[in-house]
Each structure stands twice: as C-alpha cells, then as structure tokens.
C-alpha cells in the first residue's frame, strides 16, 4: 500500500490552507429570501411541485418545530444559531430541469470535476476506475444530475433525487418517509422535515442486488444557506445495495448549517451498506467558519435477518453531531457501525451510534476510532440496548481514542442497557497516544516524523478503513493524513 508516501507528499503539497475543496463557484442562483415561516415552507414545496400531502407533512413538522428546543446534551459549544438568518432554498438557475447531463450548467459540471466527481458516464467509463459508481449530485438545495439511471432502471433499481421520487413514485415515498426518523424525533430532524430540499432516493426491489455502487455527492456552494437534505433508501426482501456519500463546501468565515436526515429500511434478508466520507469545511485554525453538521441517520432492520452497516470517515465540519443508528427489529437482524472521526484545529465532534436490540438473536458490532489533535474535542457517544424480548442479543463494542498533542480532548460516553438476561454485551474502550518509542523506532528505519505518524495513525484506523470500498478507502486514508497536517512536532 503506497498510500503512506502518497499521503505525505500530498500533505507537503498543500500549503498552510489544508482544505483543498474551499473554492466557490460563481453562478446565478434562485434563492428564497432569508428566514423561516410557513410561506417559506410552502415555497419550497411549490418549487418541488410536491403533492399536497407532502406540504401538509412539512407544515405539521414546522409547527411542531416551533415548540421544540435545541438539544444541549452533546459536548459541543457554539453561539446560538439565528434560524431567521438562513436561506432555506438556493438553487442554480436553470431554464428547465436538466434532462440530460448536457443540459447541466457547465460551471456546475466543472465544479464536480474539480472535486474529482465525474458526472459524465462516458468519463467514468473511460477513466481508470474499474468499478462503476452511479452518482447523484446535490448542489445546495437541488439535485443537479444523477448518472447511470437508465442502466439501474433495467435492473429495477430506482435511484433519483427525492424531489423526483416524490413526483414519480409518491406511493413509495409516502409509505416510508418518516417511518424511521419520526417527524418529531429531534429538533434538527423536525426542522429538516419542514424544509428539506433535496437528497437521494433509492429503491431496490425484491431479490435484486444493485449492480453498482450508488453515491451522492453533496456540495454547499451558496453563502448563508442551510443544506437540509433527506435521503431515503429502501431494500426490499433479499435486496442488496451499497451507497456512498461525500460532502464538501467552500471556505467561508461564517458558519453554515447542514441538517440532514437519512432513513434506511431493510426488509427480510436485505442488506444496506452506507458509507460516508464527510469533509465539509472545518473552519480555519482559529475556529472561524465551518459547517455545523447536525445529522440524524437511522436504519431500520425491519425484516428477518436483515443487515444495515454504517461506515463513516469524519474529517470535516466545525461541529459534528451525528449518531447513525440501527433499530434491530427483525429476528436475527444485524447492525454495524464503523467510524473514524478525526478532529484538529478547533473542531468539535460528538458522534457515535445507537444499536437498539428489539428482536430475538439480533447482533451488532461497533468499532470507533477517534483521533484528536490541535485544540479539538472528540467525543464518542453511543447507546447499546437490549429490550425485554431481545433474547439472545449480542453486541461487541470497541472504542479507541488517540490523542496527538496536549491541548485536545478525547471522551467516551457509552450507555449500555440490558433488559434481557440472555443478551451478551461486551464493551471496551482505550485512550492512548502515539508513543515516543514507536516514533523513534520508525524514524530509526528512515521514516520522517510525519511519515511515521501517518503510518501509525493508518494502523490505528485500519479496522475501519477495511470496511470502505477500495477507492474510498484510499481517498479516506489521504484525507485523514491531510486533516492531521500540522499536528505533529
């Protein structure tokens, strides 16, 4: 694996500014006025040509949201958010919805190209990538392109933006939306339910193994906007799908809000693998700017022997508040959570998972690797619970934290609740630093201090990286090294 050398070279190539996705695209935009009220909710719904029930659903969420309070239990600290100072809708101006990729504004295509996300199918086919990846590209509030739709359609897989799904497959959306993350689940989820603008929709029918990786690439471009995406993935009986998401945003002094909701539903014997490489702008070294990433992600293992696996590599965002969870309802269902959370500078991470064992013989596994550097605070917060009927439930949890430098914090807050005598839960957590002796040993063999650190960190996160599809694993490995740039010495 030559990544060590590559990463280090990449790190060196980067100047003081480590965030290479910080550019902004100049575009004409269609933007809702700042602020939030029922009219804005109506406007968003109208922009999307949504059915009436959806508008009602949004308005109901909005009214409930007004009665709620922002949660304060996480170990994150930020000034009060002025929810009236945000644009809740921003979309690149387009004459009509792009029918083919050629209708998409070249400036947007160029943006994705710069980000390394090819949107032209022939580019992907002609490129070095061996496996095909279908991409849904979400730019601020709208989906601008979805690739390989036709090929997926042949297999019976629906992969489109959620706005389109609302129009083309309303019965599926209505049947499943809000059934995993209820409208009033939490403050940000309720806000999202009222104002979500776009996101991806995936439906894999019975017995189908999705023929390629699906992915969504989220980009926040516009100033003072919030991105509220909503993703819904349904795997019918015996279906399989692997889905990846990536995120970036321009470098700005103000904080921007990203409050997404992701719902996964796996029926009998179905499997959903959901991977995230989160690299929102983290703010500068003094903590100015950056994305507030307040995300609710939850999977429902509704069917027997279903499986949902979350893998996340979190390197970006000023604040991350995120607990991808699994409700293990179906007998014999399985939940997995693999996480690498890297924090540097003034970043604050409060992330983890919930594994809720409701059904018999359900199993779950949690592997979390936290790396704190600079002045950052990195918290793992998780819940594992077995309910009365969860006979034979099993969980194994391993949370390791690594500290680099003496001005950061690493915290572990697990809740382990068993209400069933036959459930077996095992949890272990460690906190350590890279030892001077390990570094010296590597340097004695000729590695520089930075190379040695990168090597040891890569070893530390290896168990999680292995869970990612190959091309993402390499990308993630680079990202981790870049995120830790400047933390050594």
């Amino acid at each position, binding site marked *: 694996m030559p990544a060590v050398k590559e990463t280090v070279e990449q790190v060196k190539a980067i100047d003081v500014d480590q965030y290479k996705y910080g550019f902004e695209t100049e575009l004409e935009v269609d933007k809702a006025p700042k602020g939030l009220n029922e009219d804005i909710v109506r406007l968003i719904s109208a922009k999307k040509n949504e059915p009436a029930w959806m508008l009602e659903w949004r308005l109901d969420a909005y009214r409930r949201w007004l009665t709620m309070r922002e949660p304060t239990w996480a170990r994150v600290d930020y000034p009060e958010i002025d929810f009236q100072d945000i644009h809740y809708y921003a979309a690149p101006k387009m004459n009509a919805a792009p029918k083919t990729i050629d209708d998409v504004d070249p400036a947007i295509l160029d943006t994705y190209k710069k980000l390394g996300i090819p949107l032209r199918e022939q580019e992907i086919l002609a490129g070095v990538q061996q496996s095909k990846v279908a991409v849904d590209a979400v730019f601020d509030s709208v989906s601008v392109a979805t690739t390989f739709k036709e090929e997926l359609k042949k297999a019976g897989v629906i992969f489109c933006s959620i706005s389109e799904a609302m129009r083309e497959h309303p019965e599926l959306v209505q049947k499943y939306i809000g059934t995993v993350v209820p409208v009033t689940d939490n403050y940000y989820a309720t806000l999202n339910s009222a104002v979500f603008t776009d996101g991806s929709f995936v439906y894999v029918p019975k017995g189908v193994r999705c023929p390629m990786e699906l992915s969504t690439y989220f980009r926040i471009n516009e100033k003072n906007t919030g991105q509220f995406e909503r993703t819904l993935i349904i795997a019918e009986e015996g279906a399989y799908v692997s889905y990846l998401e990536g995120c970036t945003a321009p470098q700005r002094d103000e904080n921007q809000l990203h409050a997404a909701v992701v719902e996964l539903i796996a029926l009998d014997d179905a499997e959903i693998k959901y991977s995230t490489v989160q690299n929102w702008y983290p703010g500068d070294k003094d903590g100015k700017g950056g994305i507030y990433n307040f995300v609710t992600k939850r999977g429902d293992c509704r069917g027997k022997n279903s499986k949902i696996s979350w893998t996340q590599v979190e390197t970006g965002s000023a604040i991350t508040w995120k607990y991808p969870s699994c409700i293990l309802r179906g007998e014999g269902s399985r939940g997995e959570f693999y996480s690498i959370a890297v924090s540097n500078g003034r970043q604050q991470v409060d992330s983890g998972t919930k594994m809720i064992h409701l059904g018999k013989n359900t199993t779950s596994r949690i592997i979390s690797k936290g790396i704190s550097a600079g002045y950052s605070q990195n918290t793992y917060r998780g819940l594992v619970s077995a309910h009365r009927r969860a006979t034979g439930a099993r969980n194994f949890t391993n949370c390791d934290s690594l500290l680099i430098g003496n001005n950061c914090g690493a915290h572990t807050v697990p809740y382990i609740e068993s209400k069933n005598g036959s459930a077996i839960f095992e949890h272990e957590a460690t906190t350590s630093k890279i030892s001077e002796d390990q570094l010296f040993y590597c340097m004695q*063999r000729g590695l520089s201090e930075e190379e040695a650190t990168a090597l040891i960190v*890569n070893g530390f996160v*290896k168990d999680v990286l292995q869970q990612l599809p190959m091309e993402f694993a390499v990308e993630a490995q680079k990202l981790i090294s870049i995120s830790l740039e400047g933390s050594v010495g």
Partner: protein
Amino acid sequence: MLEIRNLHVSIEDKKILNGLNLTVHDGEVAAIMGPNGSGKSTLSYVIAGKEDYEIHDGEILLDGENVLEMEPDARAAAGIFLAFQYPLEIPGVATMTFLKAAMQAQRKARGEDELSTAEFMKRVRDQAGHLGIPQDMLKRGLNVGFSGGEKKRMEILQMALLEPKFCILDETDSGLDIDALKIVSEGVNRLRGKDRSFLVITHYQRLLNYIVPDTVHVMAHGQVVKSGGKELALELEANGYADYKTLAA
C-alpha cells in the same frame, strides 16, 4: 567507519556516558561488553539519535561526518541501523507495508530510484526465506503478537533489506533460545562484508561464539575501560565483570 570522541551523555540529570572513545573500522565487527548499567544501551540509542538524551560534549563521526545534529531518520538514511533490544509493536501496520515504507523513504533520502514492487517482493521473499520467516507473518501487524525470537528475526530481516553501513545489535541475544540464536547469528554473518561494520552489544559471551568479533571493548561507568581481541570475551566469561566495576570509578 565510526569514530566516537570524548562522548558525555546524561539522561534526567544522571550522567551515563563519561568521555567515551571508540573507533570501529570498515568491515570490523566490534563487541561491546559490560555489566548492567554501564551505559551500553545508552550508547546504542545515542548513536541512533533517540531524543531523551542530553549530549554535553563529544562527537560521533560516521565516515568523518558528525551525526549528532542529524534526525534519527537522516541517520538511518546515512546507513546507521539499530536492532532494538525490545522491538516496538505497531498495531494495524502490516510488516510488509512498514518494510516498503522504510525502504522507499531511505532510497529517496539517498536520491535513489524507487524499488519496483516486484523487486521489493523478491528481496523480502529471499531474505525472509533465509531467516525462516513465514509469509503470513509479514502480513500481520508489525511485531504484534510476535514471540521474542520472532521479533529479533524481524529486526535482522529489516537490517538485511535496508542494507546499512553500520549495524548496532543491542542485546540481540536476550530472550533467545539456542536455535533462534543460531538463525539470528547466521543472518548477521551473511551480512558481514568489507564495507559494513557491526557494533555488537551484549552482556554475555555466548553470542560471540556465533558472531565472532574482530575486537572486544569492555565498558564500565560510561567509558571503554579495556579493548582487545576476541579472547578478551572469554576472559570476561571466566572472571566476570568484578575487576571492571571499580576500575574507572
């Protein structure tokens, strides 16, 4: 090859080396023997550049160039290799990955071309074969869960692959049974040559039956107090270190 002049070193205000002088010629195998606490391991760490030590005076010249100002990785690239008494474990980093990273880093520092993967694999396979290191061990995390003997063999494998000029073996015999000791010694002997020198640090004479030294130096109180040929080791084996404990005080 290596020349140490009047080296004074302390750690946490404790004086360990007191004006040590030592010369090792090209192609020479020099043994350093001495009682516990005489400063043998300190000497090996100071040559390799471990940070914790304070150097008060003196110099260490490798082919006439003072290495004391160099970082450990630069010294490694210059050809200094230390086989650790207690090799470190690095979880999650496959031995193969580590070997390749180290070899390429050193080649790069010396301005040499990168080794092709095929060539690298071939070299590793050859050397691992000599040392009886199975392939699956190379895929495991570096030194993680290895026995004492396996760790020492892994050190010799690294030495063979990195092709250093000046090799320090720090108590390489400690914790080895007789079979492992033979394998490790044969590995070292294979590497002997006119352009490569060795500093073999050991408490016991046993190792020197297998790695026969050209010269033997006795260390006590942070100095070399006596030097001689290989027969000096035998003499020490017979009489012990008692004579030297008071010599330099």
